[in-house]
C-alpha cells in the first residue's frame, strides 16, 4: 500500500476534471450520421473555426469545420476535396473568446478543440443539432493567407478585353452610320 497516495491523487484529478477526461473524440460526420448514439454525450471535436463568433447575451455561436480544408483552403492552394463539413457549437462568451481568427477567403481559422455535450435536437435552441461547449482549446492559431496572380490569367484578360473592345467599337460605328 505504498502507492495509496498515488491512487488517491489520480482519483482526485478524475473527480476534478471529469468531463474533459472522459470526453470521446468524434467527427462531425459521425455525429450527423448517428445522432441518437451520441445524444447527451460529452464529446471532443477538433476543427477550424469559420466565419465569425456570434455573441448573443450569455452565449456565443461558433461553427467548426473538421473537413479537408481545416489545414488549408482551396483559396490558399489546397486541391478540391469535397464539401465542407462541420458542426455548430454554442458556448459562454468567455469560453468562446479564446478564438481569435475565423476562417474565410483571406484567413485560415484557428484550429480548436471543443469539449462539450452533444444534442441531437437541442430543446434550448429550437431543435438545432448542436454542441454545448464547456471548454475550447486552441490547437493551432490561425493566420492570414495570400493569393497569387498568374500570368496566364492576366494574358487571357487582356486578349478577351481587346476582343470585346474591338467588337464594341465596330458595333458603335455601324450604328453611327445608320
Amino acid at each position, binding site marked *: 500500500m505504498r502507492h495509496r497516495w498515488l491512487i488517491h491523487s489520480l482519483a482526485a484529478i478524475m473527480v476534478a476534471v471529469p468531463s474533459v477526461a472522459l470526453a470521446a473524440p468524434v467527427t462531425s460526420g459521425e455525429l450527423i450520421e448517428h445522432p441518437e448514439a451520441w445524444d447527451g454525450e460529452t464529446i471532443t471535436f477538433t476543427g477550424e473555426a469559420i466565419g465569425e463568433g456570434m455573441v448573443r447575451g450569455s452565449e456565443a455561436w461558433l461553427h467548426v469545420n473538421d473537413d479537408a480544408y481545416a489545414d488549408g483552403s482551396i483559396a490558399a492552394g489546397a486541391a478540391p476535396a469535397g464539401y465542407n463539413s462541420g458542426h455548430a457549437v454554442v458556448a459562454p462568451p468567455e469560453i468562446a473568446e479564446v478564438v481569435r481568427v475565423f476562417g474565410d477567403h483571406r484567413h485560415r481559422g484557428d484550429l480548436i478543440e471543443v469539449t462539450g455535450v452533444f444534442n441531437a435536437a437541442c430543446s434550448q435552441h429550437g431543435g438545432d443539432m448542436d454542441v454545448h461547449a464547456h471548454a475550447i482549446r486552441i490547437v493551432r492559431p490561425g493566420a492570414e493567407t495570400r493569393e497569387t496572380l498568374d500570368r496566364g490569367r492576366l494574358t487571357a484578360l487582356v486578349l478577351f478585353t481587346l476582343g470585346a473592345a474591338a467588337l*464594341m467599337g465596330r458595333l458603335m460605328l455601324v450604328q453611327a452610320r445608320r
Partner: protein
Amino acid sequence: MLRPSADDHRVVGMHTGKIVTGFGLLMVVPLVTSMVFAEWRTAVDFGIGLAACLVVGLGLQQLCATTHELKRRHGLVTVSLSWVLATLLGALPFSLSGQMGSYLDAIFDVMSGLTTTGLFLIQDLDHISNGLNMWRFVLTFVGGQGIVVIALTFLFKGTAGSIYHLYSGEGKEDRLVPNVVQTARVIWLISLGWLAVGTAVLTAAALWLGQTPVRAMLHGLWIFMGAFSTGGFAPQSFNTFWYHSVVFEVLCVIIFVAGSLNFAVHWAVWTGDRAELRRNVETRSFIVTLGIFVLLAAVGLARAGIYPDAMSFVRKCFYLLASGHTTTGFGTVYSRALVTQWGPLAMLAIIGTMILGGSSCSTAGGIKGIRVSLIARALREDARRLLVPDAAIISSHYHHIKDRVLSEGAVRSALLITVAFFVTHSVVTTAGVLAGYPLVEAAFDGVSAASNTGLSCGLISPAIPWGLKTVYIVAMWLGRLEFMAVLALLGWMWSVVRGR
C-alpha cells in the same frame, strides 16, 4: 418540317447575342465586389468572364444583324439558346476560381443558380471570395426574374408584341400591364422594392444576432436574394442553420413566400387591390396543400420522436415544408439529418411540396399552384357531372387576377405540363437509383433538382457520376423553362438536320 432559313438563324442569333451581352454585364457586380474587398485574383476571373460574354454577345449581334421580325418559334429557341450560352459562359469564373471539380460542376452551379434551384457542387464554400459568392446570388436573383426579363428591361426598346415570345418562353405568361417590356420593368420594380426593404431588415437582424457590420450587410443582401428568388443558395455551407434564430427564420419565410407569389398578385397588392392576395386561386391552393403536407410530415416526425418540445417540432417542420413548397431550398437541419433523423414519411411530405411548387409567373419552380387548382377543379367538375342529370350544365369558376371560367383548353394545358413534370421526376429518380442510391434519397434529390427547389438529403455531391450530374442539369433547365422552350430548341435542331 421546314428547315429554318438563314434569316431565321439570324433572328435567333441576334436576339441571343443581346441577351448574352446583358447577362455578361451582370458580372460587373461581382467584379466590383472583388475589387472592393481587394480580391484581385477573383476580379481577374470576372474580368475574363465579362469580356468573354461581350465577345460572344456582341459577336453574335454583328454576325447575325437582321431586321427580320421575331416570331414565336424564334422566341422560344432564343430563350433556350440564351440559357445554354449564359450557363456555359457564366461558369467561367467558377471554373477559374479552382473551387470546382470540373467544368461540368461549374455548369451545374450556374444552371442551379439561374434556375433558382440552389443545389451546388462548389467545394470549400466556407472559404470562397466575396466576389464569387456575390456571383452566386446575382445568378439566383436574376434567374428568379428571368435573364430574358432583365434583357427586356434594359436592352430592348419599343413595345413590339413579338417580344412577348421571348418573355413567355421563359416560363412566364401573365402580363402585369399590357406592354411586355413594361411588364418586365414592373417585375424589376417589385423585385428591387423588396430587395431594398428585405436586405435592410435582414441586415438589422444579422447585426442583432452578433454578426460584424460588413458580414451582416453581405449576409442580409445574399440571404434576401436567395430567399426572394426562391433560390436557396446561402453564403455558408450551413445554409440558414448558420443563424440559429427563430426571428431570422420567420423573416426568411416571409421573404421566400413573397417570392413564390405570382408577380401579378404583387402588382395587384402594390396598386391597392389587397383582396387579390386572399382571393387568388394560387394563394388558396398554396395554403391548403402546405397544411396537408405539414400534417403528413408532422406524423412522420412524431413517429421518429426526435424533437423534444412543441416549439422545436413546429419550427423545424414548418420551415422545411414551407421552404420545399415555395421551392426555396433553405434548410435549418443538416442534409443528412433528413435521412438519419426525419425518416421516409417526412421526406415524402417534402417531396410532395417540392413537386407542387409555388405560383406561376413567380420566381418559384414546380408544377405551380394554378395548374394544381385547375386540375383539382376539373376533377371535381367531372365528379359532379356523374351525380347530376345528363341535361344539367355544370361550370366551374376560379379567381386569378379576375374571375375566370374553367375551360377545357386551360385544363388540357395544365395537364400536359403536369404530366411532363411527372415524367421528368420519374426519369431523374430512376437515374439516381441506377447510379446506386436508395429510392427515397434518389427521389428526394431528383425531384428537388427538377422542381428547382434545392433541398438535398446528401445524395448530390461533387463525387456523384458525371452522367447523373448531367441528368440533374437538364432536369433543372427543363423545370425552369417549363419544357416548351427546350423542346422548341430540340425541334429547331432536328429541323436543321432533317427539315426540307
